């Protein structure tokens, strides 16, 4: 038996099919979840994919957090359900207060798409166990509103508790504080990041690397051995 990992499709989700493919390539079973459906269909983990969930004309993720599916995701995440938010998914997680801080527009005011170098800072979460702490990886990044911000107290807490999961290396693409690319909650079951690991799972396609695959193998191993 394998793990069932849900991928939520909001009306403006764009990377939902890509995320399903990444889950499949890792050996798990992707399950499509619909934003209007509260039922998570007994999945073992959930990914909130990238995109522009409801157009993001208001503020990225601001509407999605009120969607029916998020009611259940929020409730179960608090009870330990592994949840990964990628890009727009990360924005939704901060809007839903499952992760602290928030995202502002990139400091250079442009959309940016690049193959981004990152350092894995925390390899103990549900989604990063297949990496080693300090490992340097390349993951594609593409966003308009990717500048991670939080108040000084929160930043200090994140740093002190080792909850900065990924940090931008060599180049900070959006002005994120402390070069933060991704963070985890205290329990390590909820992780959010701006770069897109689902675009780095096959040689040749996208960035041509497979540095993103360990996200999906990490969670699969955790779920199967649990």
């Amino acid at each position, binding site marked *: 038996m394998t793990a069932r990992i849900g991928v939520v499709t909001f009306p*403006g989700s764009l990377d939902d099919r890509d995320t399903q493919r990444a889950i499949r390539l890792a050996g798990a079973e992707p399950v499509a979840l619909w934003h209007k459906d509260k039922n998570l269909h007994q999945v073992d983990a959930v990914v909130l994919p990238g995109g522009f969930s409801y157009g993001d004309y208001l503020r990225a993720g601001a509407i999605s957090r009120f969607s029916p599916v998020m009611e259940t995701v929020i409730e179960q995440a608090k009870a330990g359900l592994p949840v990964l938010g990628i890009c727009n998914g990360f924005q939704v997680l901060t809007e839903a207060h499952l992760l602290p801080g928030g995202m502002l527009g990139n400091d250079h005011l442009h*959309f940016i798409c690049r193959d981004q170098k990152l350092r894995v800072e925390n390899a103990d979460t549900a989604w990063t166990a297949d990496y080693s702490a300090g490992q340097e990886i390349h993951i*594609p990044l593409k966003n308009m509103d990717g500048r991670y911000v939080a108040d000084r107290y929160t930043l200090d807490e994140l740093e002190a508790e080792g909850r900065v999961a990924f940090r931008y290396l060599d180049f900070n693409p959006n002005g994120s504080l402390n070069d933060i690319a991704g963070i985890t909650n205290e329990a390590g079951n909820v992780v959010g990041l701006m770069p897109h690991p689902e675009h780095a799972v096959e040689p*040749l396609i*996208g*960035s041509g690397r497979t540095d993103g695959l360990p996200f999906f193998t990490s969670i699969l191993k955790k779920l199967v051995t649990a």
Partner: protein
Amino acid sequence: MSRTPLDTVEHAAATPDVELPWAELGLKKDEYERILEILGRRPTGAELAMYSVMWSEHCSYKSSKVHLRQFGEKAPQSDALLVGIGENAGVVDVGQGYAVTFKVESHNHPSYVEPYQGAATGVGGIVRDIIAMGARPVAVVDPLRFGAADHPDTKRVLPGVVAGIGGYGNCLGLPNIGGEVVFDACYQGNPLVNAGAIGVMRHEDIHLAKASGSGNKVILYGARTGGDGIGGASILASETFDDAKPSKRPAVQVGDPFQEKLLIECTLEAFKEKLVVGIQDLGAAGLSCATSELASNGSGGMRVTLDDVPLRDSTLSPEEILMSESQERMCAVVEPEKVDRFLEICDKWDVIATVIGEVTDGDRLEIYWHGGKIVDVDPRTVAHEGPVYERPLARPDWQDALQADDANKLARPASSEELRAQVLQLVGSPNQASKKWITSQYDHFVQGNTVLAQPEDSGMIRIDEESGLGVAIATDGNGRYAKLDPYAGAQLALAEAYRNVATTGAKPLAVSDCLNFGSPEDPAVMWQFAEAIRGLADGCQQLGTPVTGGNVSLYNQTGEAAIHPTPVVAVLGVIDDVTRRTPVAFQEEGQLLYLLGDTREEFSGSAWSQVVHDHLGGLPPKVDLERERLLGEILISASRDGMIDSAHDLSDGGLIQAVVESALLGGKGARLVVPDGLDAFTLLFSESAGRAVVAVPRSEEVRFNDMCGARGLPVTRIGVVDGDTVELQGEFELSLQELREAHEGTIEALLA
């Protein structure tokens, strides 16, 4: 408040002497007289609105039609062509049951007026054309041309256009995989914003724009109709910009990519359940176009109740509703018993959908408003039987002098130092510099099937994960060449796009074009136009790649000054296994560099002549399409059989431009030697067509040379991939660092 009586058909017949503003709507006197003749009475206001937009240059192709026919008449026999010219977009068979639809269109005028929205809605429009064929859009490309890079207005137009393309395409989830960015003072005030899209479907899913089956319902779905873009089609496309006339600003539409994303998903879901008989997107001329084209292509007539159209602005008049170009709308013809399911799917995606009419067994398009019949026309006279002009054409009197001003006579670098300096000057010039600042604002990765994206020679998308089947697309155009000789210039654009597709390992199959020219009322422009089409049609015939559709953009001129004639050609190719694709970047040190093809002293129209001498004159490089075909076959075979690890086509900027790009992308330098029979300058800067540079692993050297020899393609060893400099033996050495600074900093410094 007093009300003027509704201008119904009955009212029009009873009041023959009412003056209508046909001239203000862009109609010529004889065109209006023809409408009177067709109807046998004066048109109603609504009918006049429909005729005026549908008979505009933009919608009717009235000046270009007589020339465009050649694409059909000279079309080469091709088993791959499933749907040809005349539908929303052409469809090509790419094997394994897949069909691919692609098209390039212009959104030039709106993008000058309002860069962000003009460019954004250009993407939206071409994507709806692709959906309307039944396909899921899988990628977009954007060939762009702007005024001089250092002109202040370029700094207004370009960032807005780029942000608009990104803002719309990124939100739709379509990877942007190719295109071009060209600067030339001739595009000042007339930027060219062309947008292309590719879609993929199974053969059985092809849909067409026709309304058939009496009793079938006509459903309008998507955004509400508002006052944006009213008359855009006729006003923006039929006049040039002139300071004396009132501002056209309100005529540009505003895009909502989120709405379009919903439209894509719900349309594809409806297709999947086979709910759709016919479909048409609403672009230029809005409902006027969609209703008249659907009815004209179908077997019967159509009756529409305009009161049922969901409005954003309840004060709109029926004429305005018919002319509105509000974005993100489509029109589907659905059998009555399937209407409920269709509406259910729209509801799932929160898309507004309304039955606004039905197909009738008559042959008239009838439109009602407040119970009165305001339109009663034969739809063919609106959609397909518009005016056709045989505009006068004349070879410009300056053409001979221009062609006599040969760039081969220009001063060439006199020393190695000067040669080195000109290399740096060239690779750092706006046209030859890296466009990364622009392309990094587009999402290349979304959908997870991007094999190659710009700055590769062609964009490549995997369409089947199991088999690795993929498609490639390249767009090219060189207005400088076309100005020197429009016939050859169009063929050179075709040859370059064809070569770019083959260089990545894909087999070229079909062509779409976007023909950007000045005013058709100028005989010199009309001559350029006619020559370019003749060149392109002849070229496509020779290469066996049919033109499947495209777009004409005329009136790209301000006052007397027309843009360079700029035919932009898109070539679509197929590759059986994307893992065999060939990238531009040098892969391994020690690999041997070969130059394929013949290098002649051809500098007229070249990037070198522009950058170093600001010169345009002479005759463009010689066209040899048989050679292009042979070169293409060699590149495809070499890619399939693993004989080359990188390849780059040679075009503007010549060999040195190609080598520098391959070196910078691969992070590996090159040592070059001047082969016998050539001088250093010609080797580096000549723009002879039909050439490519390839990197061959030493283990493949004999096999590769034997293949080229056996098939008669000239092949010359010119160096080796090595080190962290680009060196021309005995002449100069440039470090990758120095080249990178020159090549990658230019655009950002000018525009950021």
